[in-house]
């Protein structure tokens, strides 16, 4: 029954409301994340220090390490201490090496970003034009052959997890052909295989989504209006279909980017890439909980930031979104 009638964009300052609300949500999510990361250690059954150091470690050492980590304090005290540490940039120290977690992350994060960001760029550059083109080509049930080819290729590529693709790429391009190094991060050419491994699956998924979204946009009445204006096809698709398909896809792009960051965990392990991913796997195995906790936090903050960015972009690109917010 409610119909938006009045120019809500001019009343009050919806942008301010939007900023306050969205930042508030970010803060709450951040707090939930930090608390969850803190509780993660508490939820581990048994004594985490004992688990980490092994059954053979002397009791004194275990006790000393427990005390150093503050695990003997009451829970609320530990929590306050933890929060206090985070504010001053203190993530604790590794149980294995004693190295400050912040320092480890500072070392490893750039390497992970070096993989994730180019991979994301590749995904966007490949998937959007491809999805749009195939939507236009196969709209209304045309070219069923191309549609089948596109769908089956993308389904297949999306079904291959990053690390399997990585292994296959290594086996073929590195071992068989010797074009690229098997592992390591010494040269620019060592970047090629991991980036492809990371980008191919998400690019297939995104291309399919862009196609589906574009198809559904093409079914909208306003596309018929654009055709009734007798605009050339190029303008109908680029000016009227694409912007609407993209706003619908943007949220998906965000999920893609965060998923890709997670994908680095496995891919880094295949290529022995010295990033956060190989570190977190190792530290889970070694039960180096402070380090795991720190890295989980970093990944989590990354996810929250990406979501924030997506929402801001949506608000900018879609003129209706400020109204949806308020």
């Amino acid at each position, binding site marked *: *029954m*409610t*119909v938006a*009638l*009045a120019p809500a964009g001019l009343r009050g300052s919806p942008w301010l409301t939007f900023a306050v609300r969205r930042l508030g949500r970010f803060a709450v999510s951040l707090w939930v994340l930090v608390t969850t990361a803190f509780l993660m250690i508490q939820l581990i059954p048994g004594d985490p220090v004992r688990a980490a150091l092994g059954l053979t470690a002397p009791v004194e050492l275990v006790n000393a390490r427990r005390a150093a980590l503050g695990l003997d304090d009451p829970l609320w005290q530990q929590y306050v201490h933890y929060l206090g540490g985070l504010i001053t940039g203190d993530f604790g120290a590794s149980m294995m090496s004693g190295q400050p977690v912040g320092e480890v992350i500072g070392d490893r994060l750039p390497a992970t970003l070096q993989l994730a960001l180019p991979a994301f760029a590749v995904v966007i550059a490949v998937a959007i034009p491809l999805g749009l083109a195939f939507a236009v080509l196969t709209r209304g049930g045309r070219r069923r052959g191309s549609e089948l080819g596109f769908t089956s290729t993308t389904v297949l590529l999306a079904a291959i997890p990053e690390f399997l693709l990585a292994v296959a790429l290594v086996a073929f391009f590195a071992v068989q052909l010797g074009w690229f190094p098997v592992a390591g991060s010494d040269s620019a050419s060592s970047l090629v295989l991991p980036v492809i491994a990371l980008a191919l699956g998400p690019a297939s998924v995104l291309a399919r989504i862009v196609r589906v979204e574009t198809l559904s946009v093409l079914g909208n009445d306003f596309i018929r209006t654009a055709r009734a204006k007798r605009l050339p096809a190029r303008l109908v698709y680029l000016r009227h279909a694409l912007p609407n398909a993209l706003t619908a896809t943007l949220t998906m792009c965000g999920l893609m980017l965060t998923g890709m960051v997670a994908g680095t965990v496995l891919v880094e392990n295949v290529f022995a890439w010295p990033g956060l991913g190989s570190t977190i796997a190792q530290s889970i195995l070694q039960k180096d909980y402070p380090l795991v906790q720190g890295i989980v936090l970093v990944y989590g903050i990354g996810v929250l930031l990406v979501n924030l960015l997506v929402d801001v972009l949506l608000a900018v690109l879609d003129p209706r979104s400020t109204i949806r917010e*308020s």
Partner: protein
Amino acid sequence: MSDLVFEAVSVRYGGRRGLTAVDHVGLTVPSGQVVGLVGESGSGKSTLARAAVGLSPVSAGRVLLGGVDVRKLPRRRPLQMVFQDPYSSLDPRMSIGESITEAIPRGVLPGRAARRDEVARLLELVNLDPERAGHLPGQLSGGQRQRVALARALAGRPEVLIADEITSALDVSVQGAVLNLVRSVQRRLGLSMLFISHNLAVVRYLSDIVAVMYLGRIVEVGPAEQVLTDPQHPYTRDLLAAAPSAHTSLFDTGADEATADVEPADPHHPPSGCRYHTRCPAGPLVRADRELCFQADPTEDAASRRHSAACHFSETESHQPAIPRGASAP
């Protein structure tokens, strides 16, 4: 005994920037009579109906059924509703027989056989073959679904029936059959009925009393024939004039140029004073001396006017209104 009375009912949605969809509405559906409620989309007529059955939150006022607040009635109230869209009002996975059975109050008809007979009786009542009880809604046409929806509403043994735009999704050729049915059922069972429609002709055909709603308020109410032949509120007059008819020309009944192209008001920010003044062809836009409309709210003393019209410049009532007007707005 089964009067349905809205007492200064308000329905508000949302917080600070919210919307008052229904604003202090008083309306009575007398026992055994049909009250037709008309108004444009966004006027709050459906919200008012939904408030009676508990689907919209009543933020102020009361809805009384036979003198009892409906919120204090048991969960199965003697108050049923038929909806607009025949395609979403029946569960696609339940046979129509099951849908109707579900609405039979528990304990009324113990035993499977008794309930099956009741379903058959109800289907016959709405002119459907009882053999179809096993059919899924997907196998029925829009008009047939609307009959099933009516049968389901009747299964709840209502004293009051609310019909919300029940024919607006139907073709003309089907509409007549549904309206004939509703009328015969209402008369046979002596139901009180609140019949909502945006179509004045449909409301006129079915109703004993007509109420006209505009921007969350009732602006005129009275016996159907009187309201339609001698409308008191300019909005009612405008609605009557705008009703498409093969017998009148588009330009026969002139609304004034000054108000012809005005946009409908924003329900989030209702106009001050008389809510209709932004569109009123007899109001301040046309006659500069009627400044009163900007300031004073005509619903406050509406009861003193003929048809309880919410218009400062309508006739005052010379005798007592024939229809009690629920509780008038404070």
